[in-house]
């Protein structure tokens, strides 16, 4: 499966990633992928990733421009985004 991931604000700045295309083998892991599983997968990249995605500071997830919670399922072709709680207005 192929998904697109965006990172914003503190995450983008610290991870030095704003966006990436991620390709995963189409196995049981991919078929049951959720926001939380994807966070855990990405967190293995390094201590910084671990700290940013599973650290103390809350990270919100969105799928295809909709805010979702950690258990939301991710499908092939989805646009996923990770960012801190919003602070506009």
């Amino acid at each position, binding site marked *: 499966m192929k998904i697109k991931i965006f990172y914003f604000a503190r995450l983008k700045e610290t991870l030095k990633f704003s966006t990436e295309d991620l390709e995963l083998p189409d196995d049981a892991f991919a078929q049951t992928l959720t926001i939380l599983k994807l966070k855990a997968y990405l967190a293995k990249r390094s201590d910084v990733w671990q700290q940013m995605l599973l650290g103390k500071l809350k990270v919100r997830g969105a799928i295809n*421009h909709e805010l979702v919670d950690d258990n939301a399922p991710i499908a092939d072709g989805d646009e996923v985004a990770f960012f801190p*709680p919003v602070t*506009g*207005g």
Partner: protein
Amino acid sequence: MSVRVQTEDFDAGFELNQLRHARKDTGAIVSFIGQVRDLNDGDAVSQLTLEHYPGMTEKTLASIIQQAKSRWDFFEALIIHRVGSLKPTDQIVLVAVSGAHRGEAFKACEFIMDFLKTEAPFWKKEVTQSGERWLEAKHADDAARERWMK
């Protein structure tokens, strides 16, 4: 029903006049302007950078207006939100709601702001004398949003 995310400043007076004249049965226009404060948490702010998630931002703001529409009777709602680099006293956001009567327009305008603050994907970074810092979401904003859930 209009949503704009832009780097340029806006003219609140012009926008309010547009809303006023959109319908001749308009009796009330309630508006909110948010601007950059020179002080935040006790520190002098010299610059504020606003980042957003293009696409999701517009969709979220339009959906917030739709939610307000399903609760209250108003005519038009406008949201303009700036992104990019701002300085103290620069305008950040304009929310304006027109309607026949004031009560519904007041509620819709405040609802839109409370949801914008907690759901629209904008993030603020401040530059102060001690360096740059990303702003944290405020519990007060979550509480303001919760009021509408009762």
